[in-house]
């Protein structure tokens, strides 16, 4: 099991969708990066991701990794947010049959999994149909 430090480090991104943006070319990075992968500028400023977008692609995970055994089957997808960035996560609060490519979703704060019986609860974002 990882130490809690590995979890804490990612909190700004996972809880608050904190990203950064290249001051030179405008590309948004999530998670934030130290150097732009387009223009190599190291001048980046904090920004926050859009909280709505569209499903670009999705699947239903039927054979899960061990941490997600009690959740399977569950839907995951890649969502194109309104600011142009793309992020991956679970799609929840709907029947699998209702999920469609192009569907509008909202990003919500949810529990992702429990790190074992005595471990921490891990939170982050999931996608909910709008």
């Amino acid at each position, binding site marked *: 099991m990882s130490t809690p430090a590995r979890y804490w480090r*990612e909190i700004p991104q*996972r809880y608050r969708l904190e990203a950064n943006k290249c001051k030179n070319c405008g590309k948004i990075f999530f*998670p934030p990066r130290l150097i732009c*992968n387009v223009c190599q500028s190291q001048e980046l400023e904090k920004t926050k991701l859009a909280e709505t977008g569209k499903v*670009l*692609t*999705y*699947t*239903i*995970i*039927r*054979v*899960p*990794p*061990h*941490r*997600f055994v009690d*959740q399977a089957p*569950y839907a*995951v*997808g*890649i969502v194109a947010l309104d600011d142009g960035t*793309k*992020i*991956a*996560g*679970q799609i929840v609060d709907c029947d699998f049959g209702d999920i469609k*490519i192009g569907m509008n979703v909202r990003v919500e704060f949810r529990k*992702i*999994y429990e790190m074992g019986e005595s471990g921490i609860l*891990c939170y*982050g974002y999931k996608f909910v149909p709008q």
Partner: protein
Amino acid sequence: MREVAAIGVGITKWGELWKKSFRDIYVETALLALKDAGVDRVDSIYVGSMSSGLFVGQEHIAALLADYLGQAPIPSARVETACASGGLALKLGYMEVASGMSDVVLVSGIEKMTDVSGNEATYALGTAADQEYEGYHGITFPGLYALIAMAHMEKYGTTREQLAMVSVKNHKNGAKNPVAQFPFEVTVDQVLDSVMVADPLRILDCSPITDGAAAIVLYPAELARKYGKPLVKIIGLGHATDTIELAQRTDITWLNSTYLAAKSAYAMADKKPEDIDIVEVHDCFTIAEICVTEALGFVEKGKGGEAVEQGLTALDGKIPVNPSGGLKAKGHPVGASGVAQAVEIVKQLRGECCDRQVPNPRIGMTQNMGGSGASSIVHIFERE
């Protein structure tokens, strides 16, 4: 740079090798390559292995394997680019011989994946994806390729049946390969009725968990000519990367690292897609083969599904893809697959493949890929 030839190849039966240890699988396979090459000592070893630490709890395998192969104290290095580790070993072996630093280099790959449970193997394979932003959300490896498949079907009209046909074709070839883990044929209906793993991918769309190794001896072509060995040269190679996270790519249906690696390899070899007679590609999932045939330039973007349906990629098609049975039927011991692809191409170019032999090929290609396409390595071979 010197011309480099593959003068010996070795591969042993792949599968769930409960009775054989990691080191014994490796040594048996490497000895076959040494015998085929007619050498008993090598100058240097490269071992491709994705995750011996997670699969068998053993790191520092390069020294261990050199020792058990009776080759210590020569230099030996393990290299890793996830499922493309074998391809990377071949690239580095090529560079070492081409540069003149060594004459005889053993290029090898191994993975023993059945010493851990299925869950643990799934976890180990998942470490090739972005652990913090894909794995964290419960996205598995089949899940990533399922996301690509859904998008490809939506964008290009690729059908569920076309995906199945990749599996059917590769099993048909694999049924003729004595080292294959699953040397039997399957039908489209069997694929479509198999257990769902990540929609739309079913278990018969997925490459299996495999124990296995593969090995090749590289040698300067000029010296090889003196000994009158059937000469297969490496005439081109390319290696490229992409974002580790699938979501961050501009077009998730396009394997840009494969496109760029192939572009470099074609330029180095002075060849075009039309010049390639035979190719082994990284069909870890059926959709992967479809996307790869597009990125290598054998078919237009979006036409990979049609190509398999029309038989263009069959053993007797315009461009035979995965004559060995591919990862799907032959098996996928991840670190070994890239080397095994090259073993198949060398044997095909030498005309040693019996029932699955493509008639008289001269130029062959391999494409080995790591993760959901964050690493790709392409090699081009020519029979002299």
